[in-house]
């Protein structure tokens, strides 16, 4: 298998080099010369690359299933008793395998791109060559610097070291692929943007193509980020879902810039503005995705999630430098083709709201980038490292995020070109009153109704942020609802349909706009979930038989504690009965697992989730008497984060659907109906 995999990788690399070189020569030559046929072979070679990389990936997975511990990668990341799905996940669970997986996804995207070349053969040929160049880099990296088919040195071992315990969780089978589909996918918009820049592409067609690809990729990255948060929450057992770790930040940065692009691209499509800006945003999204990979794989920034330190950081640093230089060169050379077609007419307009939206997304990205790099900068300047953790990011990022939420409410209701004061008043009066009522209700309702109620913003700054989040979330919800209602009413009046059917038809007519609103609503739900963090409670206790722990309005009683064993892992767990208001509402079993092959332990929290709050129990270990040490968290509103994620995915999917054509009504003059009878009738 190692030989097959190694050969497949070499073949893929050779084909990528050919696809790049032949494609480039064909583009540089006259269109009607014989080089056109060479260009076609370059496209086909690019398609075959996918087959070769897929073969290499299959060889690696098959080696894991066959327990081929002669391959060093399999020895370090698998073992005989590892369950089947996790053997499949071995492909992306280590440095070398994950780079092969990256190359596989890149060639998969390239496969689709090269098959769809008829949309615009010239632009696609440019994109294909740029993509081939990126493929050459990744395949060279996999083949020469991080080859997953390297053989183990010394005697052959009977069993492998096993997979990292934290990765033995069902979501780990889908979280990395989603995240990588996002990271890798940003190469495609970049390839189109650079191609359009090089060829001084006339018109906005390239931006339509790029926007769709970006939306698909953005959807994958969003799924990946939320799945990662859910994994952290469900597996790591610290009671949270986002720790502002450099690896988490690495995924957030391209997401933020990609989101900015998805908004600003509308300015280019509708008004022919921000052409230079959009070009840079597409490049920055791609570049930040690679930068994130560089951060996590070079060991330059310490992180709990990072891969082991290795020499491949130098490869990435060079790639980042070269890609930046190439982009800047073509930008300087061809920027004359990126002139704006219109001027901005008013400050209060959709255009300026997009400008501020982009500014805030960029500021958030800069804050995250600055926080991620600051320990390194501090080390260089003052000789000692500092930690930049959650308190820094929360203080810096939350106000900007709240401003963004405000723009989410305001932006969609502003008209293109300019908005009159009357229109602002008409559109915002009722949503603002509604949001104020919600905020006051949350503030003055007794806390006994639920953890989110009775929020007094003057008690703590985090309460103020939570209340502002709730107010702005309500504002966004009401503005989105009013948009659906007003549009639905117009259709209902025209067609005589019911309101709901009209709103469905409205959405179907402009899937992008109303899909976008649904995404905004999903963001609102997630933000409500985040706002609950200000009210988190936690308590730790050693619990013998029958011991009670009180937290929030829960009474936890330790009924029993015991041990279990299977070939892959041994476990200790406690049986905790949960009471609320004197009534037993369930039993929870937080566990501690010990993985035999890797000789590593991990916790497995038990979570009781409701729409109001999560009761989150962690088995922290045992005390001297062998009794479990239980840590309990009560985390309000967390479920809304995951519901919000689903709504965002739904909205993104809807925005990708082709809109239904708007029916054209032809009015027939009345005199036809009243035509004079023909003589003889």
């Amino acid at each position, binding site marked *: 298998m190692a030989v097959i995999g190694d050969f497949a990788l070499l073949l893929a690399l050779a084909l990528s080099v050919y696809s790049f070189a032949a494609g480039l020569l064909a583009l540089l030559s006259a269109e009607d010369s014989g080089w056109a046929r060479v260009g076609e072979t370059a496209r086909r070679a690019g398609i075959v690359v996918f087959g070769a990389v897929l073969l290499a990936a299959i060889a690696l997975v098959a080696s894991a299933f066959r327990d081929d511990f002669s391959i060093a990668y399999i020895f370090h990341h698998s073992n005989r008793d590892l369950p089947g799905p996790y053997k499949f996940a071995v492909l992306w669970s280590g440095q070398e395998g994950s780079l092969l997986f990256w190359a596989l996804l890149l060639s998969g995207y390239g496969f689709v791109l090269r098959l769809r070349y008829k949309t615009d053969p010239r632009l696609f040929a440019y994109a294909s060559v740029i993509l081939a160049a990126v493929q050459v880099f990744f395949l060279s990296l996999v083949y020469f610097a991080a080859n997953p088919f390297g053989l183990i040195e010394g005697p052959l071992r009977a069993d492998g070291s096993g997979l990292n315990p934290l990765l033995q969780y069902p979501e780990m089978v889908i979280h990395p692929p989603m995240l990588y589909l996002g990271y890798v996918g940003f190469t495609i918009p970049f390839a189109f943007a650079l191609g359009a820049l090089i060829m001084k592409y006339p018109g906005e067609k390239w931006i339509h193509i790029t926007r769709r690809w970006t939306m698909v990729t953005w959807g994958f990255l969003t799924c990946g980020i939320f799945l990662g948060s859910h994994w952290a929450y469900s597996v790591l057992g610290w009671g949270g879902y986002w720790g502002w770790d450099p690896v988490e930040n690495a995924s957030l940065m391209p997401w933020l810039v990609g989101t900015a692009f998805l908004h600003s691209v509308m300015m280019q499509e509708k008004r022919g503005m921000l052409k230079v800006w959009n070009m840079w945003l597409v490049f920055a999204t791609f570049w930040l995705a690679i930068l994130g990979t560089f951060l996590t794989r070079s060991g330059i920034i310490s992180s709990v999630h990072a891969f082991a330190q290795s020499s491949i950081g130098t490869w990435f640093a060079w790639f980042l430098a070269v890609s930046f230089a190439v982009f800047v060169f073509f930008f300087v050379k061809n920027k004359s083709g990126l002139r704006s*077609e219109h001027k901005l007419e008013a400050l209060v307009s959709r255009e300026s709201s997009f400008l501020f939206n982009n500014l805030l997304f960029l500021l958030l990205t800069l804050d995250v980038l600055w926080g991620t790099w600051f320990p390194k900068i501090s080390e260089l300047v*003052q000789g000692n490292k500092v930690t930049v953790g959650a308190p820094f990011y929360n203080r810096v990022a939350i106000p900007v995020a709240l401003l963004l939420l405000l723009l989410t409410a305001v932006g969609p209701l502003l008209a293109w070109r300019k908005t009159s004061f009357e229109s602002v008043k008409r559109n915002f009066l009722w949503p603002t009153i509604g949001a104020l009522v919600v905020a006051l209700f949350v503030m003055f309702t007794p806390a006994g109704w639920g953890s989110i109620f009775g929020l007094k913003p003057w008690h703590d700054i985090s309460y103020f942020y939570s209340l502002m989040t709730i107010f702005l979330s309500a504002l966004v919800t009401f503005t989105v609802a009013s948009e659906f209602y007003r549009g639905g009413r117009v259709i209902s009046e025209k067609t005589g349909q019911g309101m709901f059917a009209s709103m469905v038809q409205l959405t179907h007519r402009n899937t992008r706009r109303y899909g976008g609103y649904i995404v905004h609503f999903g963001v609102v739900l997630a933000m409500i979930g985040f706002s609950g963090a200000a009210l988190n409670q936690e308590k730790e206790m050693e619990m013998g038989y029958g011991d009670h722990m009180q937290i929030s309005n829960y009474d936890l009683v330790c009924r029993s504690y015991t041990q279990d064993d299977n070939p892959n892992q041994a476990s200790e767990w406690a049986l905790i009965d949960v009471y609320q208001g004197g009534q037993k509402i369930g039993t929870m079993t937080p566990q501690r697992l010990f993985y035999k092959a890797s000789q590593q*332990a991990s916790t497995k929290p038990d979570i009781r989730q409701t729409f109001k709050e999560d009761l989150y129990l962690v088995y922290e270990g045992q005390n001297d008497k062998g009794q479990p040490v239980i840590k309990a968290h009560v985390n309000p509103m967390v479920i809304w984060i995951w519901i919000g994620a689903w709504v965002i995915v739904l909205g993104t999917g809807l925005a990708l659907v082709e809109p239904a054509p708007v029916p054209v009504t032809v009015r027939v003059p009345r005199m036809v109906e009243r035509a004079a009878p023909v003589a003889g009738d």
Partner: protein
Amino acid sequence: MMVRSNSIRRTLHCALVSLAVCIFAGAGDPSSRFTEIGHQLMCICGCGQILLECNHVGCPSSDSMRNELMAAVTRGDSDSLVQQAFVQKYGPTVLAAPTTAGFDRAAWIMPIVALLLGFGIVILIVRAWRNRPEPMLADGVHASPGAELEKFREQARQETDL
């Protein structure tokens, strides 16, 4: 007029004092101080987690660090004293966020500078764009900004946006 401005000033003072009382009420509660300071410190075992959130099995550091923190809070040490003691014992990386002294200040200043600069730049861009002459049409004729044209634009916007 003078009486009115004095009464406004008095009301503002009262409001500020009430706010300060509300904010600082309960600040001395040891349990809340333990939670607050514990979330500003890092576990130093290398797990990269906030001290009170570190729960990894067999952590050699977090238990003793929590005990030290609890002892300091119970003694009534001030927040800055507790933090200084931890920095002296475990090094500057024990603090979960940069301080506001020396070069660490740059960490906090930079986002504010970026925010102000960003807003300034956007406002300048908006002004520059508004003052930019209307792009010429292909035949050299300027588009008429008349009311009739505006009416059609509005109609087109409504029809295409639905």
